[in-house]
């Protein structure tokens, strides 16, 4: 009996998008295709969901794993597509149904020519399953498993059981583009993930301070970008050297202002690079009060140099433990905690300024040739395409 394995993908909010729905669906489809790059498959879109079929069945788990990370995915099921006839359906039910526990059968008959009504089909399949597997019990209200049978109009039926939760959100590419400040710590990848989840295309910007930082630290950031790219379908990572900016601040400005002033330079470089790559906002992993530079005064000071675009701080109200939980969930935590120095810690003052006063900060900065330092930093830009 012919029985083809399929993955059924249901999407999230796209159905809310009135006239734009076609656009959202196309982007979602493209993102799924990208996620499955390198695996033979076909994706079709029969009413209201996507069907992945004609793939190598030994790679089913990998397909599910890749697709559940695509933003816009609500749930997925692995099941079978069979001819809409009782023998084939029963065969598929045996393949997907659990061995024990409680269950119910839920049928949906779009093709009204199928000889049994939905209710009759439920009763028939449920009864046979009970006879076949004595450790099963029926519970129609809160079953542990639901065996689904969809009789479709094209003479075929879908049979599936389990529901896998998808990443949720909106397809990446439907909400503009943002530039994520990616430090190598725990927070920034989580911030990028949250914004990408709302459909935004993400590029990354990393600052290094060679020779004060090493190549391992940079490799770690590339590794983090690679993990993020699994959700976003690839991203561009820009890498800028801020060594001379740090040295100039160290030489000419009060020690306790190092981080405050460096953050302002980073924001200037970010805005410049965002404009250059067509991003409409800057995204940071700042969380209110987490470290000295992330107080409201610290944010005010760094925000003040950004002229033309919003700075999104999706983690601003999160506790560290909440951020860590998310980092673990998206798979960046283990990489983030590798012990390489990021450039913020090289000239780290013993007592950084906690509540910088904007006027004093601007005064301290007036000892620096800001434009020349920025030009030098822009010139050091390297681009790494993460796929």
């Amino acid at each position: 009996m012919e029985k083809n394995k399929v993955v059924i993908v249901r999407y999230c909010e796209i159905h809310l998008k009135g006239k734009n729905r076609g656009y959202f669906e196309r982007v979602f489809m493209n993102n799924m295709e990208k996620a499955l790059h390198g695996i033979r498959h076909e994706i079709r879109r029969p009413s209201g969901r996507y069907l992945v079929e004609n793939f190598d069945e030994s790679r089913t788990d990998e397909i599910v794993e890749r697709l559940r990370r695509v933003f816009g995915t609500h749930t997925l099921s692995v099941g079978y597509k069979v001819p809409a006839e009782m023998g084939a359906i029963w065969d598929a039910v045996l393949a997907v149904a659990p061995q024990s526990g409680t269950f119910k059968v839920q049928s949906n008959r779009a093709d009204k020519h199928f000889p049994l009504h939905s209710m009759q089909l439920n009763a028939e399949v449920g009864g046979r399953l009970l006879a076949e597997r004595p450790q099963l019990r029926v519970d129609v209200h809160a079953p542990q498993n639901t065996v689904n049978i969809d009789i479709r109009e094209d003479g075929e039926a879908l049979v599936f059981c389990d529901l896998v939760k998808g990443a949720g959100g909106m397809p990446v590419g439907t909400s503009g583009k943002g530039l994520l400040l990616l430090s190598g710590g725990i927070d920034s990848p989580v911030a990028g993930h949250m914004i990408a989840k709302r459909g935004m295309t993400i590029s990354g910007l990393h600052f290094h301070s060679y020779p004060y930082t090493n190549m391992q630290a940079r490799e770690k950031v590339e590794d983090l970008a690679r993990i993020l790219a699994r959700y976003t379908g690839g991203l561009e990572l820009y890498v800028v050297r801020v060594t001379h900016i740090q040295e100039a601040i160290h030489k000419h400005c009060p020690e306790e202002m190092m981080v405050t002033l460096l953050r302002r330079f980073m924001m200037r470089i970010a805005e410049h690079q965002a404009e250059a790559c067509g991003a409409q906002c800057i995204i940071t992993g700042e969380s209110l009060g987490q470290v000295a530079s992330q107080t409201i005064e610290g944010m005010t000071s760094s925000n003040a140099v950004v002229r033309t675009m919003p700075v999104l701080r999706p983690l601003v109200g999160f506790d560290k433990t909440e951020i860590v939980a998310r980092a673990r969930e998206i798979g960046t935590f283990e990489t983030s905690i590798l012990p390489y120095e990021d450039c913020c810690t090289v000239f780290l003052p013993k007592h950084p300024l906690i509540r910088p006063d904007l006027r004093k900060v601007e005064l301290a900065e007036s000892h620096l040739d800001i434009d020349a330092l920025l030009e030098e930093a822009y010139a050091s830009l390297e681009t790494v395409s993460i796929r």
Partner: protein
Amino acid sequence: MIYLDNAATTAPDAEAVKAAMRFLGEEFYNPSALYRGSFEVHRKLEGARRALLSHIADAAKFGLVFTSCGSEADNQAIFSGARRGNFVTTEGEHAAVYRAAEELSRRGVEVRFAKLDRCGRVDTEDLLRLVDGQTSLVSVIHVNNETGAVNDVAAIAAAVKKKSPRALFHSDGVQAFGKIPFRLTADIDFYAVSAHKIGGVRGVGGLFYRKGAPLHPLIFGGGQEGGLRSGTENTFGIFQFEEAAKRKFAALSEDFARASRCRRILEEGLDKDLFAVLSPEDGSPYILSVSARGLRGEVLLHMLDDNGVLVGTGSACSSKNRYSRVILACGADEATADGVLRLSLSKATTEEECREAAAVVTRCARELRERMR
């Protein structure tokens, strides 16, 4: 480019690679197979074993197991020898011994660490004080891989055996083999070496063992190496090691004298105001460890890299394990430990290279001090 990180690895001896290439070509056979060609490879393998043994040991009293690296050899000695009572070692051991000791401790063997002097030599009195009737194994590194300090392992082994005749004695000889004149004595039960520190390729190490010493396999399988180390033999790597060692031992005293001159040139070429020498005067001539106190060794390392001089460092630029455990155990403070550079030589290092390297190192350190000021 001037390569001064030979304690990390040396360039493979090209002549030795050439000589061993036939084991990747016409003589690729598995030495355990039964046809003529493979038996021939087996015989040559045994010849290589005897030749390597002859450099430092009496082949009638010692055996040699080929392993995949020095770390494996250390591990095999330690997990064979320290199965009960206590294990006595030093604070100056390579991670292959130190981390194995931590694992022993998790397995319920008491581990005791003997103190070091300022240069990284073990305090023998302290070591002997730790040895008692319950000591199953003592492990003392022969040449300290960070400072180059040489421990007189033959004398220490004799003293250990005198105090506790049942105790076994192991030494990590990775930085000594082929570089320091030395022969195994009857008091030494195990001695670990590695090919790639003397012109061999990576992937080959060896454990010398006194015949009769209790040695157990870490890797079980087809029973190669007399059942002590299963796994199909790395014939190419072993023959290349043998060839490289042959050439190294033939020139040992000549190389030793040249390395001593080179090290002196390096030492004298460094700015005394910037660098403190951590290595002892009578240490291995192949290792010069210095500290640019107040500067960060790794930052200096990157600057030297940009200027064509490749060196090692005692510290890693990371917040965890930032300072070398061994350098701190020598009594150095954190600022000294942070600024450590390890310059290590090989037989290929020239005096001219050392003069130039010393100038570049001094120049970079001055520049960094200026930039950090």
